[in-house]
Every structure is written in structure tokens, then in C-alpha cells.
């Protein structure tokens, strides 16, 4: 039982990070039909911003981390949209998908060449201590990661639901034509979405890297998982991405222990295929109002 609780908590902790990436993924999809195959690299690279700022430039960590969020918002948000998504949008979905695949490769290679091909230790925001609850040993960073990731998503939900800008963004995502008629500046709303995705990626990166270590190849698994979480949960729902992320995190942890370690990667894949077969709109998704 204690093992189960431990697995559940570490699964939720990892899952909450997946959810951050998946939510960003979903936002981009809703706002601009961008399927971002570089999303994993987007989560990998901010950790290297932190390292470059703190280790190479000697800035203190408390300064390097906020700067990283800003850098990510600018580079992975604004620049990504301006330089890649915008000029390609008129070509349709396929070229953009290919371009994001290439972008993922580019980011990976740049980190490897310009920083290091080796894994790097990464400072943790939280003390590496454990709480003992009954038999179960629960690590403090796990809890902290979960709380921060969830807090971020809840804040995002509130922003989207309660503020004028947030509601305009939602209107843009649901029906850009109507939003335009209502006087919403669509381009700006789409841009906000990209900026938010950059910020989410940075937060996820800072939370996960103390455990994962900073390495250029980290995005490979993360991107895939975010992708699956988004589809399983429901591609057009932030709540869906959240549930999908947590679900995949828990399933991954549970399956290695209770199902088969050799096939632990298979379970999320099978879940993905089953969902597409049985409930293509995702667990929480609604039938898409807009066709692709």
C-alpha cells in the first residue's frame, strides 16, 4: 500500500509537469492549428537558459530563473510564431508539422553543440528531503512540483475564464470569425497563446530538470508524452490536457511496477490508440466545432 501511495504521488508529480506541456500544446492547437512537434524540446531548452545564465554568465539562480521565463516567452513564444508559424500558416498543416519536427532537431543539436552533449546537474528549488507518512516516503520536491504545476494551470484557467483578455483568447480559439466580428484583435490573441506556451514550457523545465538532469535529449520523451496526454485528455480542452497529463504520469509509474517494465512505454501508446478508436474527441473533449 505504501508503495502504491508513493507511486501515485510521484506519478501525479511527473504527470503535473506533463500536463503543463500538454496544456501549452493544446493552446497552440486551438489558437492556430499548430501541432508542435518541438514541444518536448521547448521544455528541454529553458533549463539550458538557466545554466547558461547562471553557470556561464555567473548570474545568481534567483535572477537566472525569471530571466529564463522571459527568454522562453520571447524565443519559444514570440520568435517561434513570427519566424516559423506565421509565414507557414498559409501552406496548411503539413509543412508546419514538418517545420516543427525540424525545429526540434535544430534546438537539440544547438544545445548539444553550443552547450554540451553531456548531461548537466541542475539546481533544485526545493530541499531534497522526504516526509514519512506511515510507511510511505514522500519526497518534498515531488509535492512542491505538483503544487506549483497545478497552481500554474489553475491560474491560467482563471485568466482565461475571468479576464477580458482571457475570454477574448477563448473566443478566438473557438471561432475566430465571430471573434473578429466582435472586435477581438485575433492576431494579438494568438500571439498571447504562443507567449503563454513559452512560459509554461519554462516553468515545466525548471521544475523537472533537477530530477531529469539537463540533457539535450530530454525532449524526446517529454514531447511524446505531452502529445499523448493532450490527445487522450481531449485535444480542444485545457481540462482535458490536465487530466491527460496526470493520467499518463500515474499510468507510466504504475505500469512499470504492476504491469510490465519492458512494456511500460506501451501502455500510454495503447491508451492513445484505444482513445482514438473509441472516443476520438478525448476523455473530456467535445466534438470539434472546427474542422482541421
Amino acid at each position, binding site marked *: 500500500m505504501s508503495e502504491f501511495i508513493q507511486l501515485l504521488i510521484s506519478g501525479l508529480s511527473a504527470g503535473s509537469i506533463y500536463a503543463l506541456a500538454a496544456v501549452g500544446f493544446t493552446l497552440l492547437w486551438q489558437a492556430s492549428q499548430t*501541432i508542435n512537434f518541438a514541444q518536448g524540446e521547448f521544455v528541454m531548452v529553458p533549463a539550458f537558459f538557466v545554466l547558461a545564465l547562471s553557470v556561464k554568465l555567473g548570474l545568481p539562480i534567483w535572477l537566472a530563473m525569471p530571466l529564463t521565463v522571459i527568454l522562453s516567452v520571447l524565443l519559444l513564444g514570440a520568435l517561434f510564431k513570427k519566424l*516559423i508559424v506565421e*509565414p*507557414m500558416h*498559409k*501552406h*496548411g*498543416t*503539413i*509543412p*508546419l*508539422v*514538418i*517545420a516543427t*519536427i*525540424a*525545429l526540434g*532537431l*535544430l534546438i537539440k*543539436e*544547438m544545445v*548539444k*553543440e553550443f552547450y554540451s552533449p553531456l548531461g548537466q546537474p541542475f539546481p533544485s528549488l526545493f530541499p531534497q528531503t522526504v516526509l514519512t507518512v506511515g510507511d510511505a516516503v514522500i519526497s518534498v520536491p515531488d509535492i512542491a512540483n505538483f503544487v506549483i504545476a497545478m497552481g500554474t494551470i489553475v491560474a491560467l484557467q482563471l485568466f482565461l475564464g475571468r479576464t477580458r483578455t482571457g475570454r477574448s483568447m477563448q473566443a478566438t480559439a473557438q471561432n475566430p470569425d465571430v471573434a473578429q466580428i466582435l472586435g477581438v484583435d485575433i492576431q494579438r490573441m494568438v500571439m498571447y497563446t504562443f507567449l503563454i506556451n513559452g512560459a509554461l514550457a519554462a516553468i515545466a523545465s525548471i521544475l523537472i530538470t533537477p530530477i531529469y538532469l539537463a540533457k539535450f535529449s530530454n525532449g524526446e520523451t517529454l514531447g*511524446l508524452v505531452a*502529445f*499523448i496526454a493532450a*490527445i487522450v485528455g481531449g485535444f480542444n480542452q485545457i481540462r482535458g490536457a490536465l487530466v491527460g497529463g496526470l493520467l499518463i504520469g500515474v499510468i507510466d509509474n504504475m505500469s512499470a511496477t504492476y504491469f510490465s517494465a*519492458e*512494456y511500460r*512505454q*506501451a501502455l500510454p*501508446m*495503447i491508451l*492513445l*490508440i484505444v482513445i*482514438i*478508436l473509441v472516443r*476520438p474527441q478525448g476523455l473530456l473533449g467535445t466534438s470539434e466545432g472546427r*474542422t*482541421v
Partner: protein
Amino acid sequence: MSRKHILFAAIALLLLIFVPMGQKNYIIYVLTSWLMFSIAAMGLNLTLGYAGQISLAQASFMGIGAYITALVTLAGYHWVLGWIAAMGATFVIGLLLGYPALRVQHHFLAFVTLAFNTLVFLVLRNEEWLTGGSHGLVGMPRPDFFGISTGKNLEFYYFVLVLFVISALVFSWIVHSPWGRAFKALRENPVRAESLGVDTRRITLLAFAIGSAFGGGAGAIMTPLVQFIEPGSFGLIHSLKILLMVVVGGAGFYYGPMLGAAVVILLPELLRFTEGYYLMIYAAMVIVLMVYSPGGLIGLGHKIMARVRPKKEVRKDMAKGAQL
């Protein structure tokens, strides 16, 4: 097919016959693997370039084909049996996999194939009793035909060249049949095609299954070429590599995948002076290409030609119709 095309194909074929003569083994090996990847990319071109669907599992179809061929030839049967079994199996798997995905339409084939590729990798690695696990399978013989051996590298090259020509002919025949017309119509305007009686779902499924079978056929070549296969050669990254071949060359163009495969295989060699940077340069090139010419290098060529001779139309099928 116009006379110009036939002439071009004939010259290309002559080059393919004469160029490797007297070359070193490495060059011959690279040419052989280029032919092999061209076949796989040709298949994906049918799925992507003609039917407008992204498949991220072409490497896993190669893997399935390679392992089937390995098991058949290691059991002592002739390679041809393995080849037929490989293509047949991948065709059927393509149908089974594509049917549910295409029932929901849109981008789901990309997602399903993505998951499928990972699943195939896991099965190949974990089912050691059948596939040799992560140690792979080794010692597959190169086939003999009527007493003619293909054991030496140059002999094997010609053997693959024959298979390549057969594949190219079959491909040409498919795209010039009414099916091919339906594929093209599907890519250019699926809604219109459907309204003219084209069962777009069925035709997309067939394009995907045939494309997969080409992947299986390429895999059947890899087994005797490398004489060692292991799961790592068929991971997702290799599917992406084949996808990039098709797109870089020019999706939907007959010679696109062949050009793309040549670029992907020769680029490391050409960019050797850049040392570790070649992948970066390649990735950046792909992005720029997608911005300026979603039709790939051949599309770019046409674009430039159209500049020079403004009468000809530039294709813009990737803009319209072709949806994920």
C-alpha cells in the same frame, strides 16, 4: 507519360548502371542504401504526397519487413519468399492500422502511426525468443538467383537496383492508373473528389497500405544488405528521417523521394567540413524550405522555372487540399 519523361528515366537508369562500376565498396554501399531508402520514401510519398496523410511509422514498416525477411531466410527459405511475406504483411497491417484512424479523419493517422512505431520498437526489443531482442538478428544470407550470387557488394547493388526499378515502375503504374488520378484528386480537393464519387476514405486507406508495403519491401532489402538488424534501426527518429526525405525532395513529385533520400544520405558527406554542425544546417534548411517552398526541392525548382518562364503554373497543392 511523355517522351521527355521516358528519356529522362532512361538516362537516369544508365547512370545508375554505370556509375558504381569500379567504385570503392563504401560508395557502392551508400548507393545501395540510397536505393533502399528511396523505395521506402517512395511509399511514404504515396501516403503523404498523393493522399495527403502523414505517416510517422514508415521505419516500423521497414522493421517489420526486415524482421520477417530475416526470419524467413534464417529458416532456410529463399529471400523472395521473405520479400513477398514482408510486403504482404505490411500491406495488411497498414489496412488494419489505417482503418480506425481514417474513420475519424483529420490528423489522427499521424497520431496512431506515432504510437504504432513505438509499439513495434518495444515488441522487437522485448520478444527476444522471436526477434533476438536488443542483440538483434545476425547472419542473414544474401540471396542467389538461378545460381547467380549477390554476395559481393557490386552484385548486391545491381540486385537492389532491379528491385528499385521494379518498385519505381509499380509506383509509376499506380499513379498513372485511375487510382492514381483519385489519389491526386484527393490531395488537391478532397471535398470535390468525394462529391464525384471517389470514396476518399477507402482510397486514402489504400494509399497508406500500399505506401506501407513499399516500406516493408525496403525492409526486406535491408536484411541482406546490412546482414544485421536490431530494433534501434527502426525507431521513431528513423520514421522522421524518411518523412523528411519525402518532404525535402518534394512530396507529391515522382522523383521527390529519390532526391530527398539522396540529400539526407549524402548531406553528412557534403557538409563534412562543418563537422558537428551538419544536422543543424540540415534542420535549418528544412525550416527555410518549408517557409518558401512546401513542395520541397523539386517544388522550388519548378518555382524558379516559373519565374524564368512565367507561363507555367506553380503547384500549390500543399496549400490547399492536403490536410493532415
